[in-house]
């Protein structure tokens, strides 16, 4: 029972991370109609910048804005340099060009920081653990991640639902041409949305850094999980991204935690471990297949 509470929180934490990734990616698709493979690179850049600044200054309070700024700056630069020319192109061209960008950023990080993983340290205040319910300790840093993620999600909800920028974003997602016809500076809006998405990815990266290792290619595996989230939730829908992220986060965490024990009841221990290892790494893809069978457009389709 105590383990379950802990695993549920772990699932929530992964879900929050995935939402930060998926929100930017799905907004960019919903508004600009662009598929961006290099979104994982912003995750990586955020993590690297924060780890490096944190290591140099010893201050987590400086590391956080550094990570956010680096990811947002990279996002804005990429949008103005490359992505801007891809909006009118086929998805295939977008995939290919952003695949090229991944190669560039992965290699750039390897040149700047080397191939050995960086250690991002947890700030002293957030070390240790607290009892979530009496007798169940849980690391403070992971709780912080959850809180930050929830705050970011709430801020995003406020931004989209209750500000002028958000109004333009929603209008853009519904009818791009109309927004342009009404005289909105669409180029500026696109750059802002893309930069915002990159910053959210950077936030996910810098928060994940201390839990996983900060290394080249760290954004690539989370990118593919994020795709699963988006497909499950419904492409282009932020609400869908939230639902998909939570579902994928929970399914991934819980199968990894409980499948070995469940299977051990049915078969030989070593076979069970191996099978459970394989099945739990495939669980989210199986989830995606089931969702596709029942609702081909995802749980919360964006339009209609």
């Amino acid at each position, binding site marked *: 029972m105590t383990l379950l509470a802990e695993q549920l929180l772990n699932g929530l934490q992964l879900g929050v991370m995935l939402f930060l990734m998926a929100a930017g990616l799905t907004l960019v698709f919903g508004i600009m109609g662009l598929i961006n493979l290099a979104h994982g690179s912003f995750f990586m850049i955020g993590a690297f910048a924060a780890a490096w600044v944190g290591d140099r200054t010893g201050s987590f309070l400086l590391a956080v804005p550094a990570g956010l700024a680096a990811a947002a700056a990279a996002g804005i630069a990429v949008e103005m340099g490359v992505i801007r020319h891809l909006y009118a192109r086929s998805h295939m061209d977008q995939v*290919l*060009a952003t695949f090229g*960008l991944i190669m560039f950023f992965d290699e750039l990080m390897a040149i700047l920081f080397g191939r050995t993983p960086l250690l991002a340290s947890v700030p002293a205040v957030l070390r240790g653990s607290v009892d979530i319910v009496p007798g169940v300790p849980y690391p403070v840093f992971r709780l912080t991640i959850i809180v930050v993620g929830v705050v970011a999600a709430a801020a995003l909800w406020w931004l989209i639902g209750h500000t002028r920028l958000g109004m333009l974003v929603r209008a853009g997602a519904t009818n791009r041409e109309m927004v342009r016809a009404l005289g909105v500076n669409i180029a500026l809006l696109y750059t802002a949305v893309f930069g915002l998405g990159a910053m959210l990815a950077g936030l996910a990266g810098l928060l994940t850094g201390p839990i996983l290792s900060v290394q080249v290619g760290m954004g690539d595996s989370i990118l593919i999980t994020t795709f699963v989230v988006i497909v499950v939730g419904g492409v282009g829908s932020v609400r869908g991204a939230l639902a998909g992220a939570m579902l994928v986060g929970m399914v991934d965490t819980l199968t990894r935690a409980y499948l070995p024990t469940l299977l051990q009841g049915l078969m030989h221990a070593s076979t069970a471990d191996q099978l459970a290892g394989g099945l739990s790494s495939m669980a989210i893809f199986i989830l995606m297949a089931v969702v596709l069978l029942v609702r081909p457009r995802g749980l919360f389709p964006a339009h209609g």
Partner: protein
Amino acid sequence: MVDTRRQAVVLLATLALLLALPTLATAMSMPYLVTLGSQVVIYAIAAASLDLLIGYAGLPSFGHAGFFGLGAYVVGIFAFHAADQSRFLGLVPGSTQAWIVWPAAIGVCAIASLAIGALSLRTAGVSFIMITLAFAQMLYFLFVSLKVYGGTDGMGFDSRNTLAGIDPGSDTQFYYVCVAALVLVVVVFRRLVRSRFGMVLEGLRQNERRMAAVGIASYRVRLVAFAIAGAGAGFAGALDANLLRYVSPDALHWTMSGDLLVMVVLGGVGSLYGAVYGAIAFVGLQSVLSQWTEHWMIVLGPILVAVVLVARRGLWGVLGGAGDGRQG
């Protein structure tokens, strides 16, 4: 206007060059060129099968490495069970005979792509890209978790599959087998896209609603195309495992799907011939750049971006003067 004579000349020259490669390699005392050539030819087969999807069926698949790697693993698993006299799942005995193993690889990949295609084709556009990517990654994780077959490290095996009259130890003879396979695949695919089936596929790419109105079951036609392309990639994968005498999950990794995509677009989408030039360019660039710097990807990445932004016709468009600028 397509200049067919110019195309024929370019194609014949390319074929002559491919056939002469082992002789040239010996003359220049660069024997490794034969292995590199086999790699190019094998990638060209996989890229041609991907072009069938992108260029003709209008299906932007980003999971083609899944079938490429699966085909490679069929060869590896047959070799594994042949070596220790065991049976796969307690049923299928191992084999090192090409006429058993290669068709098996093609068949397994056709079935796998039917299953994955049946699910993926329920969506279109950008979801299709993400879903094919995700399913290929699922296959990747499957083989990573199969410790029997080497897990992350993959597994090697002693010798190539035996084919009547071919010395499995000879790199040159194997190279010619690959070239023959490439010619076969391209000819079959060219006939396919010009057949009634190909016309329907082309029609669906241009206007699905109109095809539905004349009574075409779009889902089924696309599924068949997806399975054929998967089988083609599986064949290439089987040859690749034979070339390297080694299989690993790397062959299924999503970057492999990306590489295949790069070859298709570099060579020119929607011609099938382009795949050959794309594979030559990709492997060539990779080996030249990696001799020059360890960080060759920092050069190749921007080249890709530039190719997408500037050169839209692809190599075949430039060489053959075709290039109808068709996009997937």
